[in-house]
Structures are given as C-alpha cells and as structure tokens.
C-alpha cells in the first residue's frame, strides 16, 4: 500500500491559518479533520503534531484560543485567527503562489520554447 504523504514542513501552519480564516473558530480535532477533508484525504495529518504547532502560532500571536463548548457540549479549546494571523496568511499565500507559479513554469517548459 502506498503511504499517504506527510504534510510538508512549514505548510501545516499555513493550512491551519487558512482553515481558521475560512471556517472561523475551530477546536483542534476540527482543524485536523478539515485539513484532511480539504486535501481530499490525500494528506495524513499525524494529528498530535498539530498541538505543539498551535501553541507556537499562539505564542507568535497569529492565533488566539479560549475555552468553549463543542458540538456535543463538552469543554473544548477553540482557536481563532487574529489580525496578525490574517496578515501573515496574506503574505504567505502570496509567497506560495509565487513559488508555485515559478515551479509551474519549469514544468511547462519545452526545449523549443527556449531561445
């Protein structure tokens, strides 16, 4: 069986931010689940690695967290994106798009295109 690829280093933070930006406040499991769903279950998030990352993002001020009630009325920690986080998301999105565009051009290039 082919292994599902792990999430690339550094991209998980971007995915977390984007998820929170689009879907609003989420708890840890929700974030992990959404990332998997969005990736069409192509990615396997080793869900535990998410928590240290969430703490790091919180330390950096990109997200904030507070206790709340989950859908089945249990106590859960909810994370939401902050203004700083949005800004970070914007820059990182731009960076990614740029990188992706460059890579794409390399894939498309053919010998006869080159002068």
């Amino acid at each position: 069986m082919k292994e599902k690829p792990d999430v690339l280093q550094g991209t998980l933070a971007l995915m977390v931010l984007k998820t929170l930006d689009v879907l609003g406040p989420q708890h840890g499991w929700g974030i992990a689940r959404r990332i998997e769903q969005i990736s069409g279950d192509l990615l396997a998030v080793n869900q535990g690695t998410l928590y240290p990352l969430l703490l790091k993002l919180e330390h950096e001020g990109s997200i904030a967290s507070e206790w709340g009630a989950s859908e089945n009325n249990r106590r859960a920690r909810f994370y939401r994106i902050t203004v700083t986080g949005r800004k970070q998301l914007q820059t990182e999105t731009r960076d990614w798009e740029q990188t992706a565009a460059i890579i794409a051009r390399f894939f498309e290039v053919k010998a006869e295109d080159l002068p």
Partner: protein
Amino acid sequence: MKFLRRFFIRLSNFTTGRRTEQRLQEEMAEHLALQTEENLRAGMSSVEARRQAALKLGSAPAIREDHHAEQGLPLIENFLFDLKYAVRMLRRAPGFSLIAIAIMALGIGATTAIFSVVDATLLHPLSYPRSDQLVRIEDDLPGAGALDAGLSVPELKDFQRSGIFQYVSGDWSISGNLTGSSQPLRIPFKMVAPNYFALLGVNPQLGRTFDPHDETPGFNLEVVISDGLWRRAFGGDPHILGKCLRLDGDAYHVVGVLPAGFRDEGRTTEERNNDVWAAAGFAAVPFPPPVRNSRFTPGAVARIAPGMTVATAQSRVDALVASLQKQYPADYPIQSAWSVRLVPLKESVVGNVRQSLLLLQGAVGLVLLIGYVNVANLLLARASARGREIAVRQALGAARSRLVRQLLTESLLLSLLGGLAGIAILFATKGLLLRMVPDSLPRVSDISINWSVLLFALFLSVLAGILFGLAPALQASRLNLTAKLKVEGRGATGSGEQARTRRVLVVTEFALSLVLMIAAGLLLRSFWDVFNVGLGFNPQNVMAVRTRLPVPNDPKTNIYGTAAQEAVFLREMLRRSRTLPGVEEAAVGSIASVPLNHSRNLNELILEGRDLRGNGPPLVEASTVSPGYFHLLGIPLLHGRLFTDQDNENAPEVAIVNEALARAWWPNDNPVGKRVKLNGLSAATSWATVVGVIADARTESLEEAHVPQIYECLFQGTNDELVLFVRGRLDPARIADEARVAVQSINPELPVFGAMTLPGVVSGSLSQRRFSMEGVLLFALTALFLAALGIYGTISYLVNERTHEIGIRLALGATRTNILGMILRQGLELAIAGSAAGLVGALIVSHLMAGLLYGVSPTDPLTFIGVTLVLTAAALAASYIPAMRAMRVDPLMALRNE
C-alpha cells in the same frame, strides 16, 4: 517581531515555571473522544474506534514532549540540568576537582597577573586622548655617532610651521629647588612650549594651563603644578591659584593644578613624575641664542596634524629635512647625515621593557598551556573511568551531541571555577605581586585589575573549558558501545586510543616545560654573568647623597655662578663631610658620575690638532669629579696622575680619560699631555690637558665593559646637580640626615635628598633583568612541577591498568627489578620523546630572546644539556613512585581479583 514575541512568552513561562500540561491533556482527551465518535459513525466497533483514534493522534508522550519544548526554552532547561549534574559530579570526586581547579587557578591567575602589567604598560602606555597621534621628534646625526642628539630652536620652528603637526613642543626636563616650606625640596621641573597641554589634550582640575598661542621668547613666569606637589607642598590649598612658588630663588605664579591621575610623558621615571611645568619660548635669556646647530633642547613631542598617519608624517618630514639641508649646508654637513625620526610616543615610553614583558607573557602562557594539558589529562583519565556510565546513557538513547554538551558543561564549570579562584588569588596577592614589579616600568602605578583584565581571565577560562573538555568529550561520545559495555563489565584495560592520547598529552607537556626551563636557564645564566662581572670599581661601604645648587634665571643673582664661587662651597662641603661619623673618604661629583645611574651626559669631544674628516666631533660620556673620586671608588690609575687639590679654578684645566677613550683616539700614542675640549650643555670652551688615564670600569652599564669616558675636575667648572660620595663604616639610616646637617650648615636653602648605597644602585640596575629572570624561573619551576605531575599521573594510570599483567609476569618468574625497570622505561620513553620535541622549540625560542641574553649564546650547550637532564631526572622520579607500587604487586592478589 514574531520571533521576539514567541521568545519572551517562552522566557516568561520558563522563569515563572508556568505549565499548561493540563490544557493539553484535556484537549487530547476531547480530540480522542471526537475521533472515536466519528469512527463509530463510520461503523467500527467501539474497541476498534478507540484504537484507530489513538493511532491517528500519534504517540502521546512525543506530543507532550514537543508541546513542552514549545512551552519553555529547552536549551536553557537542558543547560541547567547539565549544570546541576556537573556540580554533583564535581562534588562526588572532590580530590580530582580540587586539583583541577587549583591548576587552573594557578595558570589563569598568573597569566592574568602578567596580562594586567602588559595591559597597563604595552597596551595602554599613554592616557591622553587620541594618543596614537603623539610622537617624539628625534634628531639623528649618525655621521657623528649621535642618535637622538636633541633639537635646535630653529628646527622646532620649522616643524611647527611645516603643517605636518598640529602642535610641536620642545620638552626639557630640569629641576629646581623649591624653598619656602619646612625643608627645601628638589623637584623635577620641565620647560615646555606654551602649547604643551593643548598638545597632550589635558585640562587642569584647578585654574588654567598655558595659552597655546603665547609667543614669549624667553621664560614666562607662570607654572602649572602637579596634583602631587599641590598636596605635598601646599596641603591641597584651594586658593593656590596666583600664589607664588619660589624655584631657585625665582618667583613663579601658579596658574593651574593638573588632575590627580595625570602622568607626564617622558623616558625616565623622574620625567614621568614631573611636578612643575613652565612655558618657555627657548629663544631668549636664559636660553642661548637660537642658532641652528645648537641642539640644546633634549627633545620634542608633537601631535601630528589630524587625519595624518605617522608614516605619512614621516615621509613629509624626510622631504623637509632634505630641503633644509640644501638651504643650510653649513649647519648640516653631508657627512653628519642628519635625519629626523618620528617615534610614536607610546614606543618612546615603553622602550626596552617590551621584550621582557612579552617574554614573561609568553612564559606564563606556556605554563597555562601546560596546566590545560594537565587538566585535560586528568579529565581523560576520569572519562575512561566513566566510560561505562556514558555507554549506558548512549544505550538508553542519549544523543551524541547531548553527551558532548553535558561533558563540556562539566569541564566549563571546572575551568570557570578555576578562573574564579585565580582571580580571587590575584586580588589577594595583588600587593605582593606589585612589589615584584620594578619601578622602572612605565605606568607601574596604573597597573590594576580592570574590566579588560577580568574579561581576559574569563576568555582564558572559557577557552580552557572548551580545550580540555573537548578531547575527552569527543572521545567518550565516539566509543564503541557493545565493546565498552562488555569489557567494562569485567573491569579490564581501557582503550588503546585513550592511552595514546594521554601519552601525546604528557609528551606535549614535557616539551613545553623543557622550552620554559631552557629559557629560564639561559636568563639565569645571563643574570649570573651580569651579576658577577668585574665591576672595575668597588661599591662596598659607599653611600651617595645628592644636593643641588640653585640656578636663578638672572645669572647676576647666582651665588654659585662661577667656578671660583662654587669651589668655595665644594671645598667646605668636602671638609665637613669628612668629619661625619664613620666617614673615611669623601668625594663630590656631577650627577653623571654616579655609577650605573642610566643618565646620559654626552658631550662633543674636540681633539686638538685633529681633523675629524668633517664628521663633526665624537660624542663621549663626560662627568665632573673631585680629586678623591677615583680612590674612593677604587678605580686604578694607569698612566699620568689623578686630580689634586691644586687643580683648582686658578690652575690650567685638566682632564682624565679612561682606557677605552684613550684606545679609541690615541691608539698608538700616550694621551697624557694631549689637549681636548668638551662642548656640551655646560659649554666649556677652553682647552683642557689630559693628565691621566684610568682603567675602564662598568660605571655606565653592567653589560658594556669599554665605554669611552672623560672626567673633568670639579673645581674647574660649575655644576648644579651634585653628588656627595662617602666611604666608611656608615649607618645607612643616619647618613642622609648627617649629610643634610653638614650641607645646610653651609647653606640652609639647599635640598639634600636621594640617599643611596652603591651596592643598592648596582643591584637596582639589575632589577629589570632580575624581574624577568625571576618571573620566568618561577613559571619554569611551576611547569616542571606540572609536567612531573602529568608523568606521575600517566604512569600511575598505566600501572593500575597493568596490575593484572604484572601479576602474571611475577607469577611467571619476572623479578621485581624487572618490573621496576619496565615501568621506569615507560616514563623514560615519554621523557625522551618530550625532550626531542622540546629541544626544537627551545632552539626557536632562545633565538627569539637573544636580545635579553648576556654572555651566553642562545644555543649554550651547558644549559640545554643540563636542563634536559634535570627534566629527565624529574620524569624518572615521578615514575618511581608508581613503579615502586608496581614492584610490590602481590601476584596472588592481582590474579585472584580477576
């Protein structure tokens, strides 16, 4: 920003010990619950649902660890943990820790001590702002055999106008008799240009200094005084400004007091401790007329124009010199090869102590290095004892980098404790150490343990920790796990690599000590040779006391202005001195007549009827002495006669030369009856007849046997600085007071000071040599001790390791002498390898320090062989103790232990 915010939150978590483990716990529980629910919805059995949820979450301890690491600062946390462990390790082996700390303390303390001297003298010799722009201007006339011959006033003016310098100032150190307080004092007095303090960049603590644009050609009767004189003579009077200071009978007005820390520049201690400064134009009375070839100011200091370096200034000075030579060909004959040198003021202050200090710093550095090696050796021995512990840690999953970090923390802790102890010792013994430093070093009073010295000690400690910690740490982390665990279980020999490293370390140590010992041996022999040179004069039972006659600015008021006037005083002084208790002989001379006083009194010697090929007259050392001088010092007469009382102010002038001068100028002729003229500061212009030749004596320098010298008769000229010599059974404690009473009963205004015993002067002139010799010898002995300790340690270790083997050998019939020989041979092998390496190093070092040697060649075989033997003997002695232990091994016990 982001990074900082994260860091500070982690730091605050770390320091407050805040933990959010509980939060993570809850979050993970909730996570698992949600995932399990989803799994159940997907149709799994409840057991399977829980299992899959847990799998998906991943390893809980790993998450917790990552979370924890993100929470605080794991690097610091680990460091503190290592530190705690290191302290525990040090306390568990107190003997080892104490020895290692003591060695480090010794090495770092000594190195820092020498560094504090180097820091004050070599690195910061001047305390003036932008002092690298300050130079001394020296005139050389190599054609006439004169270096640093002094400058003339027109030359000073040329330099001032040249645009090369911001300021130029002649400086002429003289002295004056300060009267008006309880005792007349002779104080150092310096005449400088009005811009002198602007040049140095010094501001007074009270009043003002001189106006740098003052153009008074002669003397300006204003003085600036030192803080020391202000306190000594005026009790720190706050209303000192405008008060009158009587120097040689002339009234000067105090216009300023310099700050307490100010030290003047100058080449001698006396110049640097100057007390009174007067501004002068050097161009009118009382100075001689300003002509080009009258170089009466002994020197000049200058501040180079801003933005110019010493090198560019020098090249522009060279151009100026060339054009002046064309302009004034009569004053600068081609043959005298006039040139002008700019010497950085720093150099001229530090001068000849540089080499001695660097030697000491090098020596102490070697001791430190040997100390490092020794501790590394100890650590290595301990690392091998701890091999099992480290193997177990590694087997349990400790990362290699983590192990290295932990072992380095231990060695750093050790070296920092050593450094701390070293600094503590330094502070405790500061007074004692400072007393060892000769006063002739510049800026002795500024030697202190300051921040840069402390920083240096810290640097040494950290370097030590890394150097001697790294080798054992790397080795320990590289060890072969299974082999170690298996072998250690049975407690047998350590690895071959370890033993090899230890041997290399001991050989290094031995080689370094040999280098030091040979350097010390050569210095010791030089010192011994200088100490034992035939002086050519007899200092025993001779004391000297100084006095000084005033020289008022107006020659008409000078009561000692002529030879006849002064002779009356001199004869009376001699008569009264001879009646002092215990005095058998008395003589008087000029300051230059004091043996080994290091003052130069070079005079132009003109020989009658001799054309000196246009080179200009040679310069020779000249002094003035009374008739009894040569007999009192025991300098024998070779030809002619000595001075007599009949050679007085009314008789024709006479001179006595020494053998060296006679040989230089009348090699095939009898100098007696020849006529000479001396032209110096005390411009004697009439011919004097040579009446006698005396034997050469080392009165100028212990190192040089044949310095040409000429003597004039005291009664036939004038001298202001006088020295009274008395020989007999004297009480050194009382002679100064007795002489004072005798002199002041003739003239109560005369200062009497500077009492010295001639044996003291002779030993004093050895002080710098003694300082470097004693220092290097002390370090060499320390090194010898450390090297012996190193060999002892290594051989003991080898014997311990081989106890089992020795047991077998004995059981198989080896005699105890065989065993003794076997162990001693190992020590000897180390010694021989060390000697071979050390001899090469010593040859290099001894050539580098050739300038400090006297009477012994840098490759002196006696020293080289002797020191090697001593060191080898020490190595054998150090191996003997463990060898004896090996000899006494009981084969039964050794084998049964197995």
